[in-house]
């Protein structure tokens, strides 16, 4: 059982643009990812939106392995700026984990 927490999203949003809440979970991004990152972006983004911080932290490597190729972003029907969101998330993680 995880408590939903809106604060995480707020903090992430403070690091830059993050519009993952518009995602409708169609799965297009997962299908297109050349690295085959199955939980990026839609699952990790959702963890951020719902405030499931532990899940996000368990996937830090995935966040940093994304190529930022934008294959997903140009094809997202909900206009989620996926690659930009990944960047924002990296900034957030750098700040909180590595104090950069």
């Amino acid at each position, binding site marked *: *059982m995880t408590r939903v927490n*809106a604060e995480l999203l707020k903090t992430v949003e403070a690091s830059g643009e993050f519009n993952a809440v518009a995602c409708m*979970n169609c799965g297009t991004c997962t299908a297109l990812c050349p690295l085959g990152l199955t939980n990026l972006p839609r699952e990790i983004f959702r963890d951020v939106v719902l405030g499931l911080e532990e*899940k996000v932290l368990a996937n830090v490597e995935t966040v940093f392995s994304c190529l930022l190729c934008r294959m997903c972003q140009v094809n997202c029907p*909900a206009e989620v700026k996926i690659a930009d969101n990944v960047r924002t998330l990296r900034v957030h993680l750098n700040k909180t984990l590595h104090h950069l």
Partner: protein
Amino acid sequence: MKPETQSRIGIYVCHCGGNISDYVDVAQVAAAVAQEPGVTISRTHMFTCSDAAQQEIIKDIQEQKLNGLVIASCSPKLHMYTFRAMAERAGVNPYQYVQVNLREQDSWAHTHHRDEATRKGIALVKAGIAKSRLSEPLVPLRVNTKPRVLVVGGGVTGLKTALALSDLGIAVDVVERSERLGGWVADWKKLYPTGQDGQALVAELEQALAQRANIKVHTQAKVTGRSGNLGDFTIRIRTPQGEQDLNVGALVMATGFAAYAPLPQEFGFGLPGVVTLPELKKSLSRGEPLQTSDGRPVKTLAFIYCVGSRQKKTAAQPQVNTHCSRTCCTAAAHLGLNLTGAYPALRQYHLYRDVRTYGKHELIFGENREKGAVYVRFDEKEPPVVSTEGAQLRVKVKDTLTRREELEIAADLVVLVTGMLPRENAELINILKVPVDRNGFFKEIHPKLRPVETVMDGLFIAGAAQSPRLIGEAVSSALAAVSKCGALLKKGYVDLEPMIAVVKTDKCTGCNACLGVCPYQAIEKTVCDGRDQVTVIPFSCKGCGACVPLCPENALDVKGYTDEQMTAAITALAQEAAV
């Protein structure tokens, strides 16, 4: 019955291009029946339906003084009315014309057996002749229609129906059971898709209504009785002023919907802070702020969708609402958007099964997500659970979009997105015999091609009483019902098929065996020469024949299909088959 010797029947066997004559020897058929008793003339045509052939037949009818016609051609579905009209133009009673189906029932069915197909063709035509010999001239039943319509229900659908009928010059009585008009919409302000004010919309309709001399509104009124038929009904209504009879030509049922009332404990219903969507919409429309049950501002709001809709039958709950209420997904998203506008810091969680914001409403769903509403999808088998911890509401849900993560949302207010049900109207349905579907909504004859007509002639349905719908959709159906009323009433009369049941008063013993079977309630008890009998209400009977075989005394007959005619036709067929 007409004595056989007087029959002067013309037989016309059609080639149908080759559709019939490629497989049936039409010349042989025509020759084989030429000597049948009552037959005056027997010919073939390449296309009987062509104008030239019709002219020839009309000439025959007039020169040979024919009084009966048998055309052996295609299915009556295709050309019965063509040939009836031709008979009428030539001066033969259209109901003394018999169509024999030599195409679908013979040539097309037996393409490899020319001889047998020809033999069958002869038998079919002989049966037609036997039926024709016993045919009687019939006249359509003419009803003089009343240019007045009763509209039951004074919601947006009913009001719009009344105004549009009034535009056509048809007088209207609106019967509304509550003390005010407008139905649900009168309680609401912002409506999707345009953001228009519901109360202003109703006020606009009421103002227009007040300008019309030919619309009468009866509030706190109910229908208490019905008699008469299509075009000429007498409807009794009761108002606080007393009872009165309204004489109308047609009825439009616009009784709208009821919101599903959750059961105690259903998704926490009954706990402080658990409300339904219509309640919340109403309270916000009254200008009340969004607040918790104890008056604090709401920071987190959770919606639970599909409450009371799309239910699955179980042993414990056999009577469920299986339909999707269609409007609620959009209504909830729209309310969410408006709330984001009014309370930008508000967090919203929309717990749904499937999002059905069809058509243009998809934009509302999209905008609501973009503005920050979080959609969480649950499986119907694992619905959310609402509980309280002190003053705090907690909603537990398994989110199928995140590996079925079990989430807990601390909410200040939980909104149950309740569906649309038909209003409780058992008495009205019984009095007016309105057909209903398995969820209790009024039922049309054909959902695509006859969407506002019912099996009860002259009784039309419209609006949310028929199925969950938006105002725009409800009004479209209202206008469809108006045009059906106009088509029925503007001419001043309507001609009905005369092929209806008749009671042979010398045979009916009043046993009442037939009473319950008539689907149109066309059979009534009566007293004839001091004896108990039944009688058939001509304008209500549709000639379906359901009552005929039930009568132990053979006292019922359907005109145009009398026992005598059918027996003669079958006998003719059997004699041919025995040859």
